[in-house]
């Protein structure tokens, strides 16, 4: 009997190589965990019926002595990534029944690294939300407290790992959609440098912010997945190479803390106390933790909620009921659009498309979108200047632990969930959430942000912090 709760990617790979168990047995254990728990959790929208066949292929390679970073390891995909011949809906009714006809680059790379793709996970519609409550297919529950949300938008991918149904998964992060659910579910989540992972085959939400990244139980596992999925891709012209930022500064174990930002209103007292304990832990590991002023960073969220809806309104124009997905009959051609999009898009999607249409309209463009772009440049500059004197910037990942379903009554209240995560997307910098501490029985996360292209610093600090060396 394989116990997924004590395994991680690294240890499972070792066991597979030593033939302690087969990938078929491991995959069967994952599928059993899904059947046992997912009725309640609802992390998965679909378990792929070819999972065991993939595992058998992996076993054949293992028998030949092949060694690949994810060979035989069951992982899950967020429902906004294309896997050829399989459904993908982005948690939306407008894509119900849609079947992908090519592989996303990140998915292809997982397959090439030997991963067993066992299913697609639940998410807020088109990745808009922080709780999975915006999924057209019902919410996912937090495995640690089923009265509470798992976070979002990649809530299904986080819950699947936290509930030990898979050993790793992919999510996408546009404003915090990997790091926030990782924190709320007590696991590791990484948002990579803008351009580090190809978005070819990822359904676009906001193209200047979106990145794909891993969920895992350890920093080492997140690093394994990261090394598999990263890299230049001619199908995504924004991708970068290892040399793009050409930064050879040595790691000096210095962490900056934007003190005023962390102590602001709305941050739970336990989160603040937990953060101070994280500071002490880093100090005990020989790190130097210094306060740094980052006065513009709190405004990242304001800039984000202008830039994001603007890009959403443009990206989601492709859903027209003509080329693929839902089609609702209207009286004439244009009425088909109104009816299809009216029925196909959920409340939050409609809200943001209309908000984006507003901020991009000619009379308001300069006041909103123009201003947000200037703010974005100033925020990015401020962060990059800060990285001249520190290796990392540390904040809590979220202002509170997991909240109850229906607790956030207004859209703005929900948007505040991203307050500590969104600067990384605005600036393009990589950031990781690491599980640390609890409020009652609920896990909390510590977030580290590094300069552009410096995921290596996140991995070093994360492994130091979680004692993974």
């Amino acid at each position, binding site marked *: 009997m394989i116990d997924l709760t004590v395994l991680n990617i690294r240890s499972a790979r070792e066991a597979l190589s030593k033939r302690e168990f087969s990938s078929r047995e491991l995959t069967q254990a994952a599928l059993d965990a899904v059947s046992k728990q997912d009725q309640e959790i609802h992390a998965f929208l679909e378990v792929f019926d070819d999972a065991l066949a993939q595992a058998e292929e992996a076993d054949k390679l293992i028998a030949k002595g092949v060694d690949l970073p994810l060979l035989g390891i069951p992982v899950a995909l967020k429902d906004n990534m294309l896997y050829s011949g399989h459904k993908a809906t982005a948690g939306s009714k407008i894509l119900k029944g849609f079947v992908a006809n090519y592989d996303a680059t990140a998915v292809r790379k997982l397959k090439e690294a030997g991963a067993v793709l066992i299913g697609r996970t639940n998410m807020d519609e088109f990745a808009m939300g922080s709780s999975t409550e915006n999924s057209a297919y019902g919410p996912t529950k937090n495995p640690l407290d089923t009265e509470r949300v798992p976070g979002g938008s990649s809530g299904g991918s986080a819950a699947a790992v936290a509930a030990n149904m898979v050993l790793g998964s992919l999510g996408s992060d546009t404003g915090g959609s990997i790091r926030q659910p990782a924190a709320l579910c007590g696991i590791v989540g990484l948002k990579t440098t803008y351009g580090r992972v190809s978005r070819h085959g990822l359904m676009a939400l906001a193209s200047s912010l979106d990145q794909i990244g891993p969920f895992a139980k350890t920093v080492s596992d997140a690093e394994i997945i990261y090394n598999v999925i990263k890299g230049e891709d001619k199908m995504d012209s924004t991708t970068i190479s290892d040399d793009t930022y050409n930064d050879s500064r040595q790691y000096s174990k210095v962490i900056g803390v934007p003190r005023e930002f962390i102590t602001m209103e709305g941050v739970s007292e336990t989160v603040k106390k937990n953060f101070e304990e994280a500071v002490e832990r880093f100090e005990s590991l020989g790190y130097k933790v210094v306060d740094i002023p980052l006065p513009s960073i709190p405004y990242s969220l*304001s800039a984000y*909620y*202008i830039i994001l809806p603007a890009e959403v309104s443009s990206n989601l124009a492709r859903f027209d009921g003509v*080329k693929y997905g839902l089609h609702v009959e209207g009286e*004439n051609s*244009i009425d*088909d659009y109104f009816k299809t999009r009216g029925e196909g898009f959920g409340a939050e999607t409609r809200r943001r*498309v209309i*908000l984006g249409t507003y901020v991009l309209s000619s009379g308001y463009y300069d006041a909103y979108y123009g201003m947000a772009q200037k703010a974005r440049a100033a925020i990015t500059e401020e962060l990059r200047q800060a990285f001249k004197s520190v290796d990392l910037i540390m904040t809590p990942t979220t202002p509170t632990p997991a909240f109850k379903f229906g607790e956030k009554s207004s859209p703005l209240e929900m948007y505040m969930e991203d307050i500590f995560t969104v600067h990384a997307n605005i600036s393009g910098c990589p950031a990781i959430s690491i599980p640390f501490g609890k409020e009652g029985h609920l896990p909390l996360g510590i977030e580290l942000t590094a300069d552009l292209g410096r995921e290596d610093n996140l991995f070093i600090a994360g492994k130091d912090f979680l004692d993974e060396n």
Partner: protein
Amino acid sequence: MDKDKVLDLAKLARIEMGEVEAEKLSHEFDAILGYVSEVKSVATNNQQPTTNNLALKNVMREDGEPHESGLYTESILSQAPAREGNYLKVKKIL
């Protein structure tokens, strides 16, 4: 923002919307737009960037080497809600 403005925007975004939802959205937009307007203080108070922060550039190539005609047609059209032969089918426009 008032309800009629929201309905007007919904029309531009090609989303069918009722009066009740438009009324609710108009109040939410007031709150959201009030909050996001704070960006102005950052945009105007700060020095402009001295470095090109994101390594973004336009990627151009010459046209050429098309794939074999029809190679992906069936796979793409199989997802269409309505088709006629190898065409997407829509209602008449004129």
